[in-house]
């Protein structure tokens, strides 16, 4: 178990990266606290797997250092780092039995057979594969194989960190939930540092204490699920987290007001005037309210009932916006007014959040 420090880390798959766009992973400084469970969230191709492979030593970074408990391991091979990693697609050793598959990482490290047998039985119970231990791995279904891969990742107790690279992609939804719960309980029991890569926000938010959101090779925000929801530091976080995502509108911000088209929206604080940059306001659908009389004019396009609440698709000043209404709210044709909760309207300059006093948020430094 270890604290993992990334120091000025960046990676490019090109031999001679010329500019920032050539970097798959842009410069990054971050500490992964010992024993914490992180989710690494982002759309496909944003550099999540690159970061994971650098931590596990499968990939050498173009620049920067990785430290485990303060010790530089940038050039140490994977074996020395003592890391467990589970990949997106199942990797099993076809010709071995399920038992031998699970035992493989332990045997390679020369552990005695009594210990191996005990660990393998524990893990088999955890992933529900006790009855197929003596079967060859080849004939199993894809999700059974992925369970073996997960099991192989968890079989070692002394790992520095457990890395999961979208491990539940091929698993059916019911089993997904069960395995995720088990990963969580495993985390509670042993306190391994865990990093869980996913592009599924539900998965990220239920699994992790802290969520790291990546966008275009850059870490745009690190925070608890609540922080990501309440104060997205980057418009991408706003879009990506939440269902539907944050409404982002081009605006002209002056003082305590934002002007969108002909309407004026009150803000929760005062802002300096921001000229010459891309200025937007973002407000989550949860903080938008429809009414008959109060607020600004809006026209409703359609209403979707998704069970626990209703999603109203509407047009406001030529922008598509989403509004979340309670399940038992009646949406009438005469509800042509909308209001935004000033405390939850965020202002973005060039996609980064700006705090009310006018200074740029910390997000950009990351």
């Amino acid at each position, binding site marked *: 178990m270890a604290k993992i420090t990334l120091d000025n880390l960046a990676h490019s798959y090109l031999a001679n990266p010329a500019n920032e766009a050539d970097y798959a992973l842009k410069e990054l400084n971050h500490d992964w606290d010992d024993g914490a469970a992180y989710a690494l969230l982002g759309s496909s191709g944003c550099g999540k797997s690159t970061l994971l492979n650098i931590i596990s030593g499968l990939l050498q970074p173009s620049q920067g250092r990785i430290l485990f408990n303060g010790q530089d391991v940038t050039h140490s091979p994977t074996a020395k780092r003592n*890391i467990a*990693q589970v*990949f997106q697609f199942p990797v099993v050793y076809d010709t071995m039995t399920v038992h031998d598959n699970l035992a*493989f990482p332990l045997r*390679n490290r020369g552990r005695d057979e009594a210990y191996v047998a005990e660990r393998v039985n524990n893990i088999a119970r955890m992933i529900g594969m006790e009855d197929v231990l003596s079967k060859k791995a080849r*004939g199993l279904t894809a999700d059974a194989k992925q369970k073996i891969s997960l099991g192989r990742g968890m079989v070692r107790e002394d790992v520095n960190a457990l890395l999961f690279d979208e491990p539940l992609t091929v698993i059916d939804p019911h089993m997904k939930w069960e395995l995720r719960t088990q990963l969580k309980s495993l985390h509670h029991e042993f306190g391994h540092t865990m990093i869980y890569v996913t592009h599924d926000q539900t998965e990220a938010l239920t699994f992790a204490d802290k969520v790291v959101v990546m966008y275009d090779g850059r870490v745009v925000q690190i925070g608890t699920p609540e922080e990501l929801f309440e104060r997205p530091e980057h418009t991408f976080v706003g879009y990506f987290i939440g269902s539907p995502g944050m409404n982002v509108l081009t605006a002209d911000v002056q003082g305590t007001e934002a002007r969108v088209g002909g309407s004026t929206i009150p803000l929760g604080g005062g802002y300096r005037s921001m000229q010459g940059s891309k200025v937007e306001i973002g407000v989550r659908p949860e903080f938008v309210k429809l009414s008959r009389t109060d607020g600004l004019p809006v026209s409703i396009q359609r209403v979707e009932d998704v069970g626990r609440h209703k999603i109203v698709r509407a047009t406001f000043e030529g922008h598509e916006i989403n509004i979340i209404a309670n399940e038992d709210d009646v949406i009438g044709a005469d509800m042509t007014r909308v209001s935004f909760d000033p405390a939850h309207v965020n202002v973005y300059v060039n996609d980064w959040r700006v705090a009310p006093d006018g200074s740029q948020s910390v997000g950009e430094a990351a």
Partner: protein
Amino acid sequence: MEKTVNQKAWFLVLPVLILVAFSAVIPLMTVVNYSVQDTFGNNQFFWAGLEWFGEMLRDDRMWGALGRQLFFSGTILLIQIPLGVFVALNMPKKGIWASFCLVLMSLPLLIPWNVVGTIWQIFGRADIGLLGYTLDALGIDYNYTSDAVAAWVTIIVMDVWHWTSLVALLAYAGLQSIPDAYYQAAKIDQASRWKVFRFIELPKMMGVLMIAILLRFMDSFMIYTEPFVVTGGGPGSTTTLLSIDLVKMALGQFDLGPAAAFSIMYFLVILLISWVFYTVMVNLDKRGS
């Protein structure tokens, strides 16, 4: 469901029947026909029954050729399969050198058999051949026309040179189909190089390797041109393989009856070994899953 009965549909398979008849059935039946008859020329044939088969089975000459043939096929398989796998493992996976290697490897496969024979026939000569001359200069007594060991070494090395590429290319194709994640997982699991080969590469290559072994067995068991051009089956009959012996008998001595019986047994042996091999492979595969 009601089936439509239309006997005329049989005519649709007629073209294939004709094709197969002319390419396989009729020639084979001709051989069967010869194998049960005797002739004194003038196109007069007499019924001989299974006499030729009995005679061939008692003939030391055929057993000798069969023994040499099995030795030849066994030896080249034992060399070519591991060597081909070894070459494939060491070929670059991508980039310009991968293409270069692929082209280089396929070159021997593109050379006609009799040319391969001629190349090695000249290559091994002590007077004008690079190999023969060099060995001679080094003081090694190498003469494939008079020394049986030298003759054997020559035809085996020649076959290895000609065909190892095929095994290597097939094995390479098998290796290329292994996703990177397997190697990464092996690193995470701290598997040694040998274990990576044993538990990842070999299992994934097994399918193509089986095809390689089967192809190389059948081809080598029927080999004729290359050794014939180099040694002519000599010195004596030390390198006379089955097909060389068969041609000598059928065309050299014009013993059509025995040669036909020989052919049929030859055919059956190949069929039998291939079938046994195939069955074993399929069963191994089944037991694995």
